[in-house]
C-alpha cells in the first residue's frame, strides 16, 4: 500500500459540506478530553449543551440572539477573505459601528422608527466600513500589512470606547457605571417575539447573507472579488481595477462588522459599553472558515458557534466545568476545518504497490 496525493481542480459542494460538518463533529469529540480532565462525563456534557442551546423556546432565542452578531462578523470575514484581504479587525469595526449607532441614535436625531432604524444602521455600516477602508488604503499606499494593523486597531478602538463611555458619552444616570447614554426608543430594533431577546438584527443578518450570496454569484463586483482573490496579478492584467475592488470589499466587510455592533446596541443592550462584545469579531473568523467562506454557510456556522457558546454556558452552570470549553470547541473547529481544506485541495489515493511495474 502506498499513499498518493492528487490535486483536485474542483471541490464539490457536497464535499465542502462534509468537511465542515466533520470539522465541527471532530472538534466536539476532541473536547471530550478536557471534559474528562475536568471530572465530567462527555455524553452528559454534550446532552446538556444541546439542551442548553435548543432545549426550549428560551434557549433557542438565546442561541439565535447570540448567532445574530456572528452571522454579520462571519460575513465580514468571509467577503474579505474571499478577496484575500485579511481583515482581523472585525472586533474593532463592531465597536465603531456601535459607537456610530449611539452617536446618531441617542437623541441627536428625532425621527419615527421607520426612518430612525435605517439611519442608525447606515451610520453603523459606514463607520465600521471606514474602519476597514483606512487600513486598506494604508496597505495600498505604504505597503503595510493589514493583518497586524487591523489586529492592533482592535486594542486602540476598545480603549477609545472606554475613554468615551467614561467621558463625554457617559450616561449621567448610570450610577457610575461606565456606559453610554441610552438609545432613544425609536432607534431600538424591535423584538421578534415578545419577552424573548431575539431581535430584528437577525433578519438583518439573514438579508445581508442573501444579498452577499446574490452579489458574489450574479454581479460584476462579485466576479471581480473572486478574480482578485484567486490571482491579483491576473485580475489586474485582465483590466479589473484591483485597488478599487479591494476598497469596496473593505467597506462591505467593515460595514457588516459595524452592523453587528449596531445590532448589539440597538437590539440587545440599548447602550454602549466596553464589554459589548465577548470576541464576536474573532469568532466571526471561525464562522467564515467553517462556512468555507460561503454566505449561506455562514448563517449555519454562526448558529453552530452560537449554540456551542450558549450550550456551554448552561452546561457549565449544571456541572461546574468551565465555560471556556466553548472557546476550545471553537478554536478546535477552526483548526479541524483548516485540516479539512487539505482534503478539498487534494484527493488522497491509496494504491497497492505494483511489483515490477
Amino acid at each position, binding site marked *: 500500500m502506498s499513499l498518493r496525493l492528487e490535486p483536485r481542480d474542483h471541490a464539490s459542494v457536497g464535499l465542502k459540506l462534509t468537511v465542515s460538518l466533520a470539522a465541527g463533529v471532530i472538534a466536539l469529540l476532541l473536547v471530550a478530553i478536557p471534559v474528562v480532565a475536568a471530572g465530567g462525563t462527555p455524553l452528559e456534557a454534550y446532552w446538556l449543551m444541546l439542551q442548553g442551546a435548543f432545549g426550549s423556546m428560551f434557549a433557542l432565542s438565546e442561541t439565535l440572539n447570540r448567532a445574530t452578531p456572528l452571522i454579520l462578523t462571519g460575513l465580514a470575514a468571509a467577503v474579505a477573505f474571499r478577496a484575500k484581504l485579511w481583515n482581523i479587525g472585525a472586533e474593532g469595526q463592531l465597536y465603531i459601528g456601535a459607537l456610530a449607532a449611539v452617536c446618531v441614535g441617542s437623541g441627536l436625531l428625532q425621527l419615527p422608527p421607520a426612518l430612525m432604524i435605517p439611519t442608525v444602521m447606515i451610520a453603523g455600516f459606514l463607520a465600521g466600513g471606514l474602519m476597514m477602508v483606512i487600513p486598506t488604503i494604508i496597505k495600498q499606499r505604504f505597503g503595510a500589512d493589514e493583518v497586524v494593523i487591523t489586529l*492592533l486597531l482592535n486594542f486602540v478602538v476598545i480603549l477609545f470606547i472606554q475613554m468615551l463611555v467614561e467621558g463625554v458619552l457617559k450616561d449621567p444616570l448610570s450610577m457610575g457605571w461606565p456606559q453610554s447614554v441610552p438609545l432613544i426608543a425609536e432607534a431600538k430594533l424591535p423584538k421578534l417575539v415578545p419577552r424573548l431577546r431575539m431581535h430584528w438584527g437577525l433578519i438583518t443578518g439573514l438579508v445581508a447573507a442573501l444579498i452577499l450570496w446574490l452579489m458574489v454569484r450574479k454581479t460584476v463586483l462579485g466576479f471581480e472579488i473572486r478574480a482578485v482573490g484567486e490571482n491579483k496579478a491576473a485580475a489586474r492584467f485582465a483590466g479589473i481595477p484591483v485597488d478599487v475592488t479591494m476598497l469596496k470589499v473593505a467597506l462591505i466587510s467593515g460595514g457588516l462588522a459595524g452592523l453587528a455592533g449596531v445590532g448589539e446596541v440597538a437590539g440587545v443592550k440599548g447602550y454602549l459599553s466596553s464589554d459589548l462584545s465577548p470576541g464576536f469579531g474573532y469568532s466571526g473568523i471561525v464562522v467564515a472558515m467553517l462556512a468555507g467562506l460561503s454566505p449561506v454557510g455562514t448563517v449555519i456556522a454562526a448558529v453552530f458557534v452560537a449554540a456551542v457558546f450558549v450550550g456551554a454556558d448552561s452546561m457549565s452552570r449544571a456541572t461546574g466545568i468551565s465555560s471556556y470549553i466553548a472557546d476550545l470547541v471553537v478554536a478546535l473547529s477552526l483548526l479541524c476545518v483548516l485540516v479539512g481544506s487539505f482534503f478539498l485541495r487534494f484527493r488522497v489515493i491509496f494504491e497497492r504497490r505494483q511489483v515490477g511495474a
Partner: protein
Amino acid sequence: MDVLFDILGSANFWAAAIRIATPLIFGVLGALICERAGVLNLGIEGIFVAGAMAGWLAVYLGAGLWGGVLVAALAGALFGLLHAFLTVILGLSQHVSGIGITLLATSVSYFTYRTALPDVTSPPRIAAFQPLNIPGLSDLPFIGPALFQQTPLTFLALVFVVLVALVLYRTPLGLAIRAVGDNPASVEAQGLSVVGLRVGAVVAGSALMALGGAFLTMSAFDAFFFGMVNGRGWICIALVVFASWQPGKALLGALLFGAFDAFQIRLQAQIGQVVPGQVFLMLPYLLSIVALILVARRADYPRALLQPWTKGQRH
C-alpha cells in the same frame, strides 16, 4: 521640558524600559526565527498566554522557577509543532493556522487555569524571580540600578539575542535557515530538508515566544491574569518588520518600545489629570502601527514567507 529631563534622568526609568522590553525581546526573536525560515506565526499571541500560564502553574504546583521556564518553553514548542504541522507539512494557510493556534492556546490556558484552580477568587501568587545583585556592577551609580538590577530572565533574553545572531549569521545551520525562507529550492538542491528546517525553526521560535509569556507571570508579576498578554504578541509581529528580521535591530526595537512605554507611564503620572488614561494606553499600539507604516516600503520580507513548499517543487 523639565518633565522630559526628569524622566530620562532617572535610573528607575531605564530599568523599567528594559523590564518592559524583555518579553518583547523574546517574542520578536521567536517571530524572527519563524519568519526567517519562511513561516509567519500568528500563534504568537496565544503562545504568550500559554507560556505565561504553563510556567506559572508549574511553579505554583511545586516546580522550581527554572523548571517553570522549561515547562513554558515546552508548551510553546508544542503549539509551534502544531503550527508547523499545519503550515509546513500540510502547506495550509499560515494566517488561518496562526489565528487558530492563538485561539486554541488561549482557550487551553484559560480552561486549564480555571480547572486547576476552580475556587480561587483572587489570583494566587508564586515566589517570582528577583532582581540579581551582580557584585560590582549592580552597585555602580546610575548604571547599576538602570542596567544591572534586572531579573535573570532579562539577562537570558539578552543572551538569546547574541545566540540567535551568532547562529543565524555564523553557522551553516543559520545559513540554511535564512536560505529556506528566501529560496527553498536552493536548500533542497544542497540535499537539505526544507520541511525539517522549517519545522525546527517554528518549534524553536515558538519556544522563545513562550518565554516572553513566562516572563510576565514569573518575573514582571507573580500571578496569572486573564487578558494579561493584551496584544504584546501582535506588537512583536509588527516589531519584526521594524527590525528588518535582524536580531540586533530586534533588540533595539524592543528597547525603544520599552523606553517609550515606560515614558508614557511616567508622563501619565505627570499630566494624567488633563488627558484620559486610555490615551496613554493606546500609544503603544499606535506606535507599533506607525512604525510598521514607516518601514513598510523598505521592508525586505523573506522572499518565501507565506509560501508552502512541496518536495521536488520547481519554480
